């Protein structure tokens, strides 16, 4: 029964994609229905699984099948497994039960919302097809039982992200952003792949059930453990937008907003953190790896939060916020508590997707991404949307008893135990989070209405499709914490700290943006040094461009010149030319004079005769 449910969840996305692709042009209109129906099926199946196995009852459920026997002998001396084999299979245990429910439920909500959002788009069918394919890839990633299969779906998810970011491919910026996302991901995946190869060769097995801390430590020396951990973490850095691979995530906002909600806030970018949690033993085997993870996470969190404070584009603010929150999750893992990181992942998924979908409502209604323009066009009049916005932002800032508070609390505790330096960094990030959240809300909600835009009448179906997902997500943002929380102990000190951060961050924002118009004037008037740096995104994109354009191209040009002059010119051409010259020299011998030829022949004869005379003294 469980296996049947698992197969349903896994294949429903693929089935939807194939069905939609096979639809004739006349029937393309029903594509949304197919997508929504099948994603609902997957969500229902995972709900059933969740209910069946609540509290870890009857888990783990595994289905595993070897498909390639790589070697019969162990390559390294003390490897526990004698036979290397590659497996394919499902693994369902308490870890990914939550995750699969999260992925399928958010997929369903986003598909439902997309019916409203993409209502007027011509290529709707293609969109729903890709969205379903993404669900297939993501569930595959979550349900895999070994690293290689995870990698396979990892790449598929990256592909789907490319297809969806560049959905409006006629727009130059969208196509570029899609390419950027794919290339940066691919670059990071190189590390991941090398890590997988090392693990296979040195350890012998890629199954998660085999990758236990003790077993690993027995087989591999500490330096190798660190190397493997760092390599796999490189892959995580690419997927979860850690510094310096975070550059693709803000640009990924070129895609449709529901895509950003699904992929770039809740599921795909969370895949990295999920892997950290899943294969935590691989990373925790070496303290150095954890330190690297902690540092990278801290850097990411700070960068994301800092850059979010000056963005005008609503989706960009949310994108940088996602980068920052992912950094926090990574920090939690680096501090040793992958549980806290994963918990924050789940709560963040809900309220971030809520925020993205809400911003989708604003964008769809006011046809602009800029928060000032939204404010001026009457943002605060859409009371439902404003309400959801507030809800989501407060969860993000960590107001109790919303879900965000509990998860962030857990993270801060874990970090505080580890290292006070990083703890202060995390606190600063929380401060900035509160600041930019309040800023966004204030600018949208308190803008003086210049030009009012009346909403056009919407059909009932569209209204349902828009509001139901928002409502569900909001509810989950409130409730999810209580459902899935690992442990809670009332910590007065943490409560106080959180309150202080909220007040200070929010207060600063209120101070500066209580009159958004004036603030805008001040901004446009003169930019401080800090602002300039922030606006150029700490010059990271420029650094990449420099590396690629100047350095990379220079190397390429040099190699080209080397190839043309040395290899082609010297070795190839010169060889042929010298042979030709030699030939022409030899051809001079053939001058057509008979007696010259004869003379040469006779000379040869004489030489042979003399050679015989020299070597045979006496009778031969």
């Amino acid at each position, binding site marked *: 029964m469980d296996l049947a449910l698992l197969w349903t969840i896994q294949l429903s996305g693929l089935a939807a994609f194939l069905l939609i692709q096979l639809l004739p042009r006349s029937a393309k209109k029903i594509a949304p229905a197919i997508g929504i129906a099948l994603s609902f099926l997957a969500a229902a199946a995972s709900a059933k699984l969740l209910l069946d196995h609540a509290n870890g009852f009857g888990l783990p459920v595994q289905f595993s099948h070897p498909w390639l026997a790589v070697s019969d002998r162990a390559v390294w001396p003390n490897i526990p497994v004698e036979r290397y084999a590659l497996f394919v299979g499902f693994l369902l245990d308490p870890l990914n039960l939550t995750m699969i429910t999260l992925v399928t439920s958010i997929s369903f909500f986003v598909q439902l919302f997309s019916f409203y959002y993409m209502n007027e788009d011509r290529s709707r069918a293609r969109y729903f097809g890709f969205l379903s394919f993404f669900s297939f890839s993501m569930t595959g990633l979550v349900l895999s039982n070994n690293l290689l299969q995870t990698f396979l779906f990892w790449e598929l998810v990256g592909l789907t992200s490319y297809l969806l970011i560049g959905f409006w491919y006629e727009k130059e910026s969208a196509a570029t952003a899609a390419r950027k996302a794919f290339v940066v991901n691919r670059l990071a995946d190189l590390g991941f792949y090398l890590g997988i190869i090392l693990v296979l060769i040195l350890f012998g097995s890629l199954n998660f059930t085999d990758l236990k801390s003790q077993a690993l430590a027995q087989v591999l020396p500490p330096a190798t453990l660190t190397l493997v951990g760092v390599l796999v973490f490189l892959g995580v850095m690419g997927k979860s937008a850690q510094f310096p691979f975070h550059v693709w995530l803000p640009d990924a906002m070129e895609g449709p907003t529901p895509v950003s909600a699904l992929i770039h806030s809740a599921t795909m970018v969370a895949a990295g953190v999920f892997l950290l949690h899943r294969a935590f033993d691989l990373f925790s085997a070496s303290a150095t790896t954890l330190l690297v993870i902690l540092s990278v996470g801290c850097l990411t969190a700070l960068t994301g939060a800092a850059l979010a404070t000056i963005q005008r584009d609503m989706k960009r603010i949310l994108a940088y916020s996602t980068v920052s929150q992912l950094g926090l999750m990574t920090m939690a893992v680096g501090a040793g508590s992958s549980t806290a990181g994963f918990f924050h992942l789940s709560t963040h998924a809900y309220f971030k997707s809520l925020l993205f979908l809400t911003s989708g409502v604003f964008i769809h209604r006011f046809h602009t991404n800029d928060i000032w323009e939204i404010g001026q066009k009457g943002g605060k009049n859409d009371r439902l949307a404003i309400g959801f916005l507030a809800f989501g932002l407060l969860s993000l800032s960590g107001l109790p008893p919303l879900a965000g508070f509990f998860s962030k609390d857990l993270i801060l505790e874990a970090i505080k135990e580890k290292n006070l330096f990083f703890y202060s960094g995390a606190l600063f990030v929380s401060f900035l989070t509160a600041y930019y959240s309040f800023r966004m809300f204030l600018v949208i909600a308190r803008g003086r209405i210049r030009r009012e835009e009346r909403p056009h009448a919407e059909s009932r179906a569209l209204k349902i499709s828009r509001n139901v997902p928002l409502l569900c997500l909001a509810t989950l943002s409130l409730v999810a914490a209580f459902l899935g929380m690992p442990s809670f102990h009332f910590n007065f000190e943490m409560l106080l700290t959180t309150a202080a951060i909220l007040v200070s961050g929010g207060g600063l924002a209120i101070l500066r943006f209580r009159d958004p118009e004036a603030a805008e004037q001040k901004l446009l008037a003169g930019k401080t040094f800090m602002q300039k740096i922030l606006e150029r995104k700490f010059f990271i994109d420029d650094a990449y461009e420099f590396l690629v354009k100047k350095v990379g191209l220079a190397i390429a040009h040099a190699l080209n010149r080397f190839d043309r002059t040395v290899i082609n010119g010297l070795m190839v051409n010169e060889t042929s030319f010298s042979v030709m010259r030699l030939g022409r020299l030899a*051809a001079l*011998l*053939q*001058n*057509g*004079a*008979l*007696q010259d030829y*004869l*003379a040469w022949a*006779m000379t040869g004869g004489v030489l042979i005769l003399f050679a015989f005379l020299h070597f045979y003294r006496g009778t031969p």
Partner: protein
Amino acid sequence: MSQSLQSYLVISSALFAIGVFGLLGRRNLVAVLISLELILNSASLNFLAFNKFSLPDKSLGQVFVIFIIALAAAEVCVALSLILLLYRKKDSINVEDAKELRG
């Protein structure tokens, strides 16, 4: 000098050398042909010398010389046709005027 194998061989070697000199040194094609005949004759002389002094079966060497003479005749026949052809074309039988087969 008494007649011995050595003496005959010396004579034939001398004839050969003279023939080679003419072959390489003369400008007139017919003169070259004449030198070639000298070389062939030196070979025949060689054969007969060995025939007398070293071979038990005395007819063998002679048979060989018959063949040499016959072949020399055939060769001269063809060579003279060629020379006449060349003369018709170039109006000269100087070896150095026939250099068209060059590389």
